[in-house]
């Protein structure tokens, strides 16, 4: 992602943001609410079109421009998003939600394997396969949202604020699960998260975004953790 400007209507949320995620990495995008994390993620997914700059995907030397593509097309390239607020289909059952995750054509062949994998990775979902998604607790919903994203056999997994609305103990469980999945499925992960300590547990490196600008780039987890700026950004000290 290079020099991206983006926003809604007259408001510009992102100002010249550039980030990159290399294959096999877990990158954290850190910052408190309202700083542009979600907007950045939406730019990648084609849900917000950038006013300037470019977003592209490079695999095996071929370069695919994402800026003019619809969300559906981007999904079909193997990019999946676990959206903020989970965005499950509340009136569909757990299994129906999962099966919808496999909508993209390339994933349909693997649907049985993926479903089995999802239930194995999240045993709680197997027990509740017929339950309506909307009636589950927040933690279970977040698990389902992650599992649903994996159903599309993605190469790249974007995760937007997985900790929202969850009790601390659940947050660490979700975060740990993401790491586990990343390793088992050989994913590339970009995670937007405000929970600094949790996110840095699993990230290889990270960016801190403040007021729509990348304020700090940590090339390793340690570099991020030791930086005193963090507290300032987070607590306004």
């Amino acid at each position, binding site marked *: 992602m290079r020099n991206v400007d983006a926003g809604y*209507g007259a408001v510009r949320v992102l100002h010249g943001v550039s980030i990159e995620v290399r294959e096999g990495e877990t990158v954290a995008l850190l910052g408190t609410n309202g700083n542009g994390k979600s907007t950045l993620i939406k730019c990648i997914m084609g849900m917000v079109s950038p006013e300037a700059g470019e977003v592209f995907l490079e695999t095996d030397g071929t370069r695919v421009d994402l800026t003019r593509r619809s969300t559906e097309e981007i999904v079909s390239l193997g990019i999946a998003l676990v959206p903020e607020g989970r965005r499950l289909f509340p009136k569909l059952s757990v299994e129906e939600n999962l099966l919808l995750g496999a909508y993209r054509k390339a994933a349909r062949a693997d649907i049985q394997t993926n479903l089995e994998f999802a239930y194995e990775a999240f045993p709680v979902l197997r027990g509740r396969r017929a339950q309506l998604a909307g*009636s589950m607790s927040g933690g279970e919903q977040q698990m389902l949202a992650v599992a649903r994203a994996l159903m599309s056999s993605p190469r790249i997994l974007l995760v937007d604020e997985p900790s*929202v609305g969850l009790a601390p103990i659940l947050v660490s469980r979700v975060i740990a699960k993401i790491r586990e999945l990343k390793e088992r499925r050989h994913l590339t992960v970009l995670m937007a998260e*405000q929970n600094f300590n*949790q*996110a840095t547990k699993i990230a290889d490196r990270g960016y801190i975004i403040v007021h729509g600008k990348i304020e700090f780039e940590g090339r390793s987890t340690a570099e991020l953790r030791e930086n005193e700026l963090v507290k300032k950004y987070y*607590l306004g000290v």
Partner: protein
Amino acid sequence: MSDALLQVEGLTKRFGGFLALNQVSIAVKPGERFGLIGPNGSGKTTLINCVSGSLPVDGGHITFDGRDITALPAHRRTRLGIVRSFQIPKPFTSMSVLDNLGIPLENAAHGRGADGADAMQILEAIGLAAKAHLRPAGLTQIEMRKLELARAMAARPKLLISDEAMAGLSSAEVDDILTILFRLNAQGITIIMIEHIMRAVMRFSERIVVLDAGERIAEGTPDEIVRNPAVEKAYLGE
């Protein structure tokens, strides 16, 4: 505690099986600048929906100005002086900016039939006078936020609840809004600020309550809050 302007006791709210607020109590003193913070989804907006009357409560009591208002409909609370702004602005889209203010002026503020002068005064104070005759659709984000505040002010509140009035604004714009809120407070209006932008909350609030996962986890001055390990844990995680 009986000197509190707003007192919330043991407030509980469920959405289906989800416990959004669990026995939350807060007390806001007259004239206070009160901050309400917490990570996303911690129940802040639910709390103010219950206080303003948009949502019925499942348990607990709300007292305002010495009067139990738990069962009052929202518009009656507004008339008593509890006025809120919305996180996502909800302007009256078919009316001009000026007329948007007319609604609370004649419905909530005392004395019906207020003419345009009152509304214009508020718009001037907040810096929207030039846009008075536009429809809200023609406003920018910051103007929309200001309209939201201006409309709340037109209801002549005793207690103003500002729900994330600064999300998505630039630094300078945040300061702009802060100035307005300080000025209102100086005029004697009690203010509850719900905000994610820490810099703003810390600067503005005299006292802060922190919610996490529907529970009250801390209370204190900004300094105390910053040093509170529970708060750090809630925000930064374990």
